[in-house]
């Protein structure tokens, strides 16, 4: 029987960032939000993680950049973005009227890049928090190296931490043997939260034309295909750190999102799910409410990590 009590509280805290709904839209998948405004009421989202921005402008990879694959998508955008200066001058002001949290995403190719762009971006009032993308697999070897090397991950995080007092989420890569080890050093370096996971490296070949389908050869695999990989990553990270986790990778339903929460994620992020159906974030939020209500649970926070006996985080 359904308990008809008060609406469950599904808000989430990521360090100093409070989300009324525990759903962020994944960086690079949702533009700056306005692109989706005709399809979704943005006020029903927890927040939007903006497309990653770098120090200098980037034209990105040549086309094709997208390949649909079994239960997922390969992408190799290559961090197309206007560069931080032009971004600050022309784009950031527009984020002021977003009816949900706005998380800036910072990518870089050196420790100094991360520090510089974080400082410049975080200084703006329109930005509620920073996500540090140290795990982009689509820019040659450069970008991802940071999330695959404990020393580089630590230094990039420390530099960004020094550059802002705003909530700092660091985004980890699944393309490692031991993601928990990276999570630990990133926590120690001052991250307020972790985004787990970025895309998994992959590629597809066009057998008719005898060449890779992506102009960039390899790309990042996202969508339902990677969900089991992502849930395990969250499970392992949640046993290793005390800071909150934003779980992501193939979330399309509330039940998918709850797998991440029960593994130890405080909030979730939806990227490719928006491409399968733009209503996914709304269905996830309402489905989580229903799940809690049916079980008479008052707050989402109570069940964070509850399937994971080794969960060490604060709820």
């Amino acid at each position: 029987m359904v308990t008809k009590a008060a609406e469950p509280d599904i808000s989430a805290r990521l360090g100093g960032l409070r989300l009324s709904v525990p759903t962020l839209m994944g960086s690079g998948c949702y533009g700056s939000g306005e692109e989706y405004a005709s399809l979704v009421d943005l006020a029903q989202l927890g927040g939007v993680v903006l497309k990653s921005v770098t120090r200098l402008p980037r034209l990105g990879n040549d086309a094709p950049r997208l390949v649909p694959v079994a239960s997922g998508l390969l992408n190799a955008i290559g961090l197309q973005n206007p560069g931080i200066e032009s971004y600050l001058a022309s784009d950031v002001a527009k984020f002021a009227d977003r009816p949900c949290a706005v998380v800036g995403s910072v990518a870089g190719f050196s420790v100094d890049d991360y520090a510089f762009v974080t400082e410049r971006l975080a200084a703006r009032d329109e930005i509620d928090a920073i996500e540090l993308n140290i795990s982009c697999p689509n820019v040659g070897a450069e970008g991802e190296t940071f999330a695959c090397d404990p020393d580089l991950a630590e230094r990039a995080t420390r530099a960004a931490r020094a550059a802002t007092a705003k909530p700092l989420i660091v985004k980890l890569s699944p393309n490692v043997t031991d993601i928990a080890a990276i999570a630990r050093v990133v926590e120690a370096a001052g991250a307020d939260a972790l985004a787990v996971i970025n895309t998994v490296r992959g590629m597809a070949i066009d057998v008719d034309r005898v060449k890779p389908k992506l102009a960039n050869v390899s790309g990042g695999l996202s969508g339902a295909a990677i969900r089991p990989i992502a849930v395990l990553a969250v499970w392992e990270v949640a046993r290793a750190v005390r800071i909150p986790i934003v779980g992501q990778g193939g979330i399309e339903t509330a039940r998918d999102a709850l797998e991440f929460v029960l593994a130890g994620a405080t909030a979730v992020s939806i990227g490719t799910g928006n491409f399968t159906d733009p209503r996914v974030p709304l269905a996830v939020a309402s489905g989580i409410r229903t799940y809690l209500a049916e079980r008479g649970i008052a707050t989402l926070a109570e069940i964070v990590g509850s399937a994971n006996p080794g969960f060490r985080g604060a709820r």
Partner: protein
Amino acid sequence: MPVLETPPLVHETVVSDRREPFSDIVIIGLYAPKIAREARPGQFVMAVTPSGERVATALGIYEAAGDRISLMLVVVGPRTRELALLERGDRLVLAGPLGNGFQLQALGKNVALIAGGVGLASLLLPAQRLLADGARVHLYYGARTAGALVDAELFEAAGAGVSLATDDGSRGHHGYVTELLAREGRTHETIAACGPSPMLRAVGTLARTLGVRAQVSLEETFACGVGACWGCVVPLERSSAQAPAFPPVAPGETRDYVHARICKEGPVFWSDELRW
């Protein structure tokens, strides 16, 4: 699951009819009054895969009249295969209409339409509108074989002339549809085309040869369909009116074009502004 509020451009449509004029070509009619009312010629929708898990599929709006639209599908992969199974009464969620259609004004009063295969789907509404606005319209329509040349009569009914071509010579000109126009020489003011990329490149070359301009509607893989992911880009002259301001030129960047999003800045571009 509780019923979700449906935002403006997301529509729960219902299949009203279905026909299969040739194997692996399916036309599904949908009760979709808002899209029917608002669609501009050359716009598209994103169709949500009924079983989930797959990225939605971009499809041109083929017909639009009264409360009904239709979509023309060619089965090439898992998503079109699944959509092709839809039957009368089934539901289908569509986002749209999306994208900029053809710039009909700029096409003038004597237009050659060039369709390659399922590219036909994006040309019926432009043909109807151009004809209604008093233009002369001739459809050049190519497909691999006679049976795959479907629905040319809908264009004739609207008042367009029609010339056909097939790869195997089983109907009309034996060869590429662009060869038909090349043979005729410059008999049209402009071209509007939709089809696979190799054909559209040939249209670009043809247009240059004939000294006319061509608007081409590109069919690439989309993810978001709304300009959010920058996945569907095509290289475009920086000077194009459709070029996004984004990004500015980086120091050391040797590529002298910009990347325009087909879904947002397009899907229709002037062929002489594309750098592909």
